[in-house]
């Protein structure tokens, strides 16, 4: 049975399920845990705890919901020597993530030109189902994108060097090897560079509506009533195909290494095996594609602001990955985890979770060292979003991780049954939010109440201390695929 530890922590002890090597822990409040218990999330947290070499705890953030293999909102760290890497533990949309841009404008300056601005963005940034972006890179050039990520984009005129400091891993995960990315993945991706995509991906123009921590907000370049832009996109077809390919390779690999899993979607191989190393090099390549993708979208956003507002000087507050596996060093606290302690190199799987490093962490650029890493939490369409900052507490108990968003609460079909696109547009209009969407069905599936309340999710994270609130943003214009 689930054991309540305190108001925001619920433990799934090892005894819950045969084969669990470590405990599971879900961050939630009383109300949320009731909801989480309705689907397979708890089982999936327990299943992840059965994988070889997992250390600490198998974690679920308050936005957790049932996924495939791993739950969405899951965090799990594997010992580098004895642990495994799971392609499903990263997910299909490798380095799906968010980027926040701060503008030099206040709300009253943008409001009169908002429709023009949204129309310009909608014209300039390809979005929606289907394929093509504005440019088609050659196969040889695509390899450079996969190796260099955001710095490839900067080198080619999309943004500047300063941008790179404000991206997780400086916009380039090392060790990427394009030769380990299949020609199929490249075929799916080569004309999708610089496209927003569909589903839950979006671009929003938002207003900083509340500041909780003035000093940190100032350090992040944010102030009340300021206009900011939030971009949510990933590695598109290329990343999806990399995951599909390696799930297949890992199915075979498990036979070779004698690994048995309780759910096939958890397919995994030893981190140190050839298959494991190959996957991580291909995953890094796909992640770099996503960084380049968001960098190009940033460039076009700046151009649209320049054209309509006369100033395109938008700065990157930060860019975070939501779906990724990363080699990191963590100090294992024996008192928290009830295991051996000490510094350990681990592979942290974040599936629908955000890195949340505290002040002073060496992975952060100098200007963020004093306050900590911005943690970007997008809400569902038309609701608010948050900026938080990473904490020491997150380092201690969540491998430096926090939640990633609101988390779905309703299936797509149910969302469609309950709302028409017209009704939704009317509702958004009454909230003074402009919307441009490629398809109507995409709109209703992403309706705000199809998700958990992002404010409640953020409250749990804040109160549990695994990230602290800095500012809240409210959308005034939404662009969707």
């Amino acid at each position, binding site marked *: 049975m689930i054991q309540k530890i305190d108001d925001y922590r619920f433990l799934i002890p090892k005894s819950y399920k045969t084969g669990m090597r470590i405990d599971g822990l879900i961050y939630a409040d009383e109300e949320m845990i009731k909801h989480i218990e309705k689907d397979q999330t708890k089982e999936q947290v327990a299943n992840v705890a059965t994988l070889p070499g997992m250390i600490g705890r198998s974690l679920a953030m308050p936005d957790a919901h049932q996924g*495939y293999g791993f739950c969405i909102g899951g965090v799990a760290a594997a010992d580098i020597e004895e642990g495994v890497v799971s392609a499903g533990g990263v997910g299909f949309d490798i380095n799906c993530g968010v980027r926040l841009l701060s503008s030099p404008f206040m709300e009253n300056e943008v409001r009169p030109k908002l429709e023009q601005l949204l129309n310009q963005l909608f014209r300039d940034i390809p979005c929606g189902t289907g*394929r093509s972006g504005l440019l088609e890179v050659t196969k040889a050039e695509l390899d450079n994108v996969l190796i260099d990520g955001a710095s490839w984009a900067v080198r080619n005129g999309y943004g500047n060097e300063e941008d790179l400091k404000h991206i997780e891993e400086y916009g380039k995960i090392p060790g990427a090897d394009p030769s380990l990315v299949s020609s199929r993945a490249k075929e799916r991706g080569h004309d999708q560079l610089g496209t927003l995509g569909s*589903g839950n991906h979006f671009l929003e123009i938002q207003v900083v509506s509340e500041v909780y921590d003035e000093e940190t907000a100032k350090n992040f370049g944010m102030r009340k009533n300021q206009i900011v832009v939030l971009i949510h996109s990933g590695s598109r077809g290329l990343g999806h195909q990399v995951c599909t390919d390696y799930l297949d390779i890992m199915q075979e690999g498990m036979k070779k290494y004698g690994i048995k899993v309780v759910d096939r*979607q958890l397919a995994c191989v030893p981190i140190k095996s050839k298959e494991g190393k190959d996957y991580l090099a291909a995953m890094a390549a796909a992640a770099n594609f996503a960084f380049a993708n968001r960098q190009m979208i940033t460039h076009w956003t700046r151009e649209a602001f320049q054209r309509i507002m006369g100033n395109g000087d938008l700065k990157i507050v930060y860019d975070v990955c939501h779906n990724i596996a990363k080699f990191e060093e963590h100090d294992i606290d024996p008192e928290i985890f009830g295991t051996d302690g000490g510094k350990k190199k681990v592979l942290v799987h974040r599936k629908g979770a955000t890195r949340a490093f505290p002040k002073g962490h060496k992975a952060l650029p100098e200007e963020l060292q004093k306050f900590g890493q911005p943690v970007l939490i997008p809400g569902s369409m038309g609701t608010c979003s948050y900026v938080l900052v990473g904490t020491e507490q997150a380092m201690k108990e969540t491998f430096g991780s926090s939640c990633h968003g609101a988390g*779905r*609460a309703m*299936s797509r079909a149910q969302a469609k049954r309950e709302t028409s696109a017209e009704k939704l547009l009317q509702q958004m209009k009454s909230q003074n939010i402009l919307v441009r969407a490629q398809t109507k069905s995409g709109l209703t599936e992403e309706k705000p109440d199809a998700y958990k309340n992002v404010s409640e999710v953020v409250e749990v994270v804040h109160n549990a201390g695994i990230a602290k609130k800095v500012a809240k943003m409210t959308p005034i214009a939404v662009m969707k695929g």
Partner: protein
Amino acid sequence: MKRGYVILDHPADMGIEAYGKNLKEAFEEAAIALNSIILDLTTVEPIQHRKIEIKASDYEHLLVKWLSEILYLYDGDNFVCCEFDIEDLNPNFLKAEVKGEIFNNQKHQTKLDVKAVTYHQILVCENSERGLVRVFLDI
């Protein structure tokens, strides 16, 4: 026994349950369901054909690879199919001919991007009267 499919709810994404008088029909129906999720199939004409051959370790593996192949044809090869004829099917092998045409965004109405085919709660079963498959998609 009729053939057909139903779309299943999943908190994050979407599933397909497809059936027919045998597994061959169920696999074909699953492919129709997948492409119906991606686009309006009535806008696609069977003008060209493609041959598909897939090897796998068991039926579940084969189902994921079959649907991944159809998805790749659309997303990687720009080819949308509307007719699926499985000529040969056993637990380790599938041979099929699919018909459709080159994707044209003026002619074909897309609905939703499907990221991938998953093993989540995957099911393949058959008796003398009926074949049934279930598979979930990442949207």
